[in-house]
């Protein structure tokens, strides 16, 4: 067993603040099918993530990183084990509770931006601000990602990188506790990708959102507090960066 990596003390170690972790996963398992045909996306995974931490999940396709993110984001439920965000149990929660959790605490950034094409950049951000408890003004969120000059453009009038930055602004406008990003630079070229990552890093810093980024681009690892490598449904290694690199200093 390569279970050493999953040992609680290791995974739990963070910036050493001693504060309780915000995300806790214990024995998390996600399987599809039954009997011999059972396919495991996650196997008995343990994990703790601290408040404000910037985590990069690395791994090839099928390693389980998306499944883990979906469970932490309240989009999916595990087959066994438990996952919790602070005092919110994510495992036994019903649809409505998960929706409320996503609405109140989580900001999502998707690989394909998922903007509403009939709304302008400002309106896309406003859309989420409308249902948030304590949002920042949409213009402020867009300023954080450097798009103050593109407020009234429709997605079709924006470049891919600009669209993704709108998506980041949309994710942070609610001042989320957690910012979950699924391959945010997957559809972008290097320079544009760096702009988006800067926006995410800035949000992490200024909003204080615990940030988890999924990627299979190992170069992004440099900007994380912690890098979790996944394979076969487990965390196979954990690295801690003594110094986080600025996105513009990343090389890939």
């Amino acid at each position, binding site marked *: 067993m390569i279970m050493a990596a999953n040992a609680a003390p290791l995974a739990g170690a963070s910036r050493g603040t001693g504060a309780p972790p915000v995300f806790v996963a214990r024995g998390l398992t996600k399987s599809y099918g039954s009997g011999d045909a059972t396919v495991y996306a996650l196997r008995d995974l343990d994990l703790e993530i601290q408040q404000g931490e910037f985590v990069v999940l690395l791994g090839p396709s099928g390693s389980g990183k*998306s499944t883990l993110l*979906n469970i932490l*984001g309240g*989009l*999916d439920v595990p087959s066994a084990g438990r996952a919790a965000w602070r005092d919110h149990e994510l495992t036994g929660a019903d*649809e*409505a509770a998960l*929706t*409320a959790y*996503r*609405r*109140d605490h*989580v900001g*999502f950034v*998707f*690989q*394909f931006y*998922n903007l*509403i*094409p*009939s*709304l*302008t950049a400002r*309106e*896309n951000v*406003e*859309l*989420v601000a*409308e*249902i948030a408890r304590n949002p920042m003004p949409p213009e402020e969120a867009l300023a954080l990602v450097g798009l103050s000059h593109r407020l*009234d453009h*429709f*997605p*079709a*009038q924006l470049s891919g990188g600009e669209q993704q930055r709108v998506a980041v602004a*949309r994710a942070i406008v609610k001042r989320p506790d957690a910012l979950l990003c*699924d391959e945010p630079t997957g559809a972008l070229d290097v320079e544009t990708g760096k702009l988006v990552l800067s926006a995410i890093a800035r949000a992490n810093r200024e909003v204080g959102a615990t940030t988890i980024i999924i990627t299979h681009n190992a170069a992004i690892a440099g900007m994380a507090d912690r890098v979790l490598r996944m394979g076969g449904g487990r965390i196979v290694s954990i690295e801690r960066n003594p110094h986080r690199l600025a996105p513009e200093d990343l090389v890939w």
Partner: protein
Amino acid sequence: MLDRKLLRDLWSLRGQVMTIAMLIGAGVAVLVMSVSSFLALRGAQQAFYAESHFAEISAEVKRAPRPLLARIAELPGIATVEGRVSGDVRVDWPGAEVPVAGRILSLPGSGDQPALNRLRLLAGHLPEPTRQNEAVMHAAFAEAWRVRPGDGIALILNGRREAFRIVGIAHSPEFVFTSRQGSPLPDDRGFVVLWANEEGVARAFDMQGAFNEVLLTLAPGASEAAVTAELDRLLLPWGGRGAYGRRDQPSHRFLEDELAEQRILAVTVPVVFFGIAAFLLNIVLGRMVEAQREQIAALKALGYPAFPIAAHYAKFVAVICLLGSLLGVTAGAWMGAGMLNNYRPFFRFPEMPYLLPVWLPFLAAATSFAVALLGVYAALRRILQLPTAEALRPARPVAFGGRSLGFLGSRLGAARKIPLRGLLGRPLRTFFTVFGIAMALPMVVLGLFWWDAMDSMVDLQFDRIERGDAFVALTDPRHARAVRELARLPGVLAAEGQRIVPVRLRAAQQSRLLALTGLPSNAELRVPRDAAFRPVPIPQDGIALSRRLAETLGVREGDIVQVEMLEGARHEQDLPVAALVEDVIGFTALVEIGALNRLMREDDLVSHIALRIDPLEAGALWQYLAERPRVAATNVKAVWLRAFDEVIAGLVLTSAVTLTGFGIIIAVGVVYNSARVALQERGWEMASLRVLGFTRQEVGRILLAELAVAVFLAVPIGLFLAQWILGLILGARDNESFDVPAVISSGTFAAAALVVLGAAFASAVLVRRRIDRLDLVAALKARD
């Protein structure tokens, strides 16, 4: 290979396939129903008219000598002439709660069929030449009372009671539609037509060696107008009352009016259904092509020519049309047969088989397919012209113009802007969606408004205009003393005399034969009304015409009409149109009774008496009137209204249920398909919103708000359309038998709106369930 894909596409879109097939089915059903029942009715009519040698021109005359027939036969343009004696009779029919009226017509007396208007015997035989008390009875009355050959009947002919024996039951081409006094409803239990040998009939009406009706057919190429004019000239000295063609023959006219209505139905209603189906196919197939553009491009890249790919999508449409046509032909044949059964009590033909012509299903299917292809033409063309390389890339997102929404922009939240931009971003689609849903309302309104129309007809004709309970026709005009005599009878609360004279009205190019009624100026049992239902005083000098009659004649208030009396000394007089009045059944023309008597150069005469009676003494009163020799017929309003209810209620209910069903098919078809397409197009967006923390309700609201706005726009537009279409249909009706007022009650409007809102809501709920099943995780991945 492509065919397997076709089946999968059809299956995965089965809800949409079915709702569109239902729309096509409804159009096909109406087409099949109206064309097939039209053809069956027309076929029965033509066969019976030909077989029975139905007269083309008829004329009534007071009393003309037999030898005049030979002179008529010599007129140019005449093929066959038949003279006969006819008269109104009263029937002493045990079991009838009110007096039964009848008409007796003479047969040649040779034991042979007449040359024209021959009878089709259903049972028995014609009277033996020597038997003057044998009679053939029309099938309508015989069926209503289960009369068989051998049964007896007592008639009061010209005041004398005579016993007849029924020897035959028959149909007649001039009584395909049978009613008394031009009533728009059959009265099979209260009105009988009989045929007996000429000798006996002539003796009863004092017509030996004479005739009072002449029938004729035209030689090929002869002009009806010319022959009519010549005939009138010959008959004038003998009291001719004006010859008329089939157009004015009551039975024929009623049948033609109905045929004309079927023809309108056959054209208009299917167009609506096919049009909406074409629009829905356009958006559904357009969406399908859009979703499958990469597949299409891949097929093209693999070397598939464009045509078979387009043909593949055309097949998709063809399958839907075929499905709809199968449904529609089945339903249409069933409805057509039902329609024909509805006709049977109205139109008596010896045979009226329901036939579905072989070509009709094909015509219906081909029409629906042609219209549907027209609807998907744009989508198919896009496939054929799609450059392979471009198609392999995902479609660019729809560009939305107009950044601001005007003053709304600052007031509406972002969530509200999504549906609004959806509506404004595709104005054409929005227009057709609104229009499509709106068209559901006229359907429902057309189904339900008949109750309003019938209520309003009965209210106007029988509550406001004819305020008496019974109407007595005298055998011939009597002095007004007769009114006072009747008024003194027990059970009679009020009696009012009327003088009714057959006249021909002429104005410019138009002329009409009708009954001119003279009313006392203080009449209370018959109160003419204007368009606002206010009583109209009976004009002292001049004539009051019904609005519809005035329109037919092309005259207005103040214009002059020429009145030719077709009774008595046949004076002619020009009269100004002094007032326009409303009526429902037939055409009304009124003058003051004293003025009419003066025009006729008559004493103070009445021919009809309106009565108000005490219902408790009604039975004894009908009995007394039945025995009076001078009373030709007594019509009782309550009986007529009951017959009206019996005949009409079933028809109205059938039409209401059918058309409401059609309205629901339209509303569900448009709303369900629009919602499904919206979900297909924007499911990914909606799933994204769910991930961002929007609840199912919020996402459902955002997606369906666009449709909700469309539905709420459609309702008032639909109600307006309903009023307009109803006006058009009733205006095009051109039915002189009776007028259907374009009255729609607020209850009908509300019911139609509720039906459509309900259908829309139910469709939305079906789609809403799909929102609940949106795959949130998929939204994180690539779209479509």
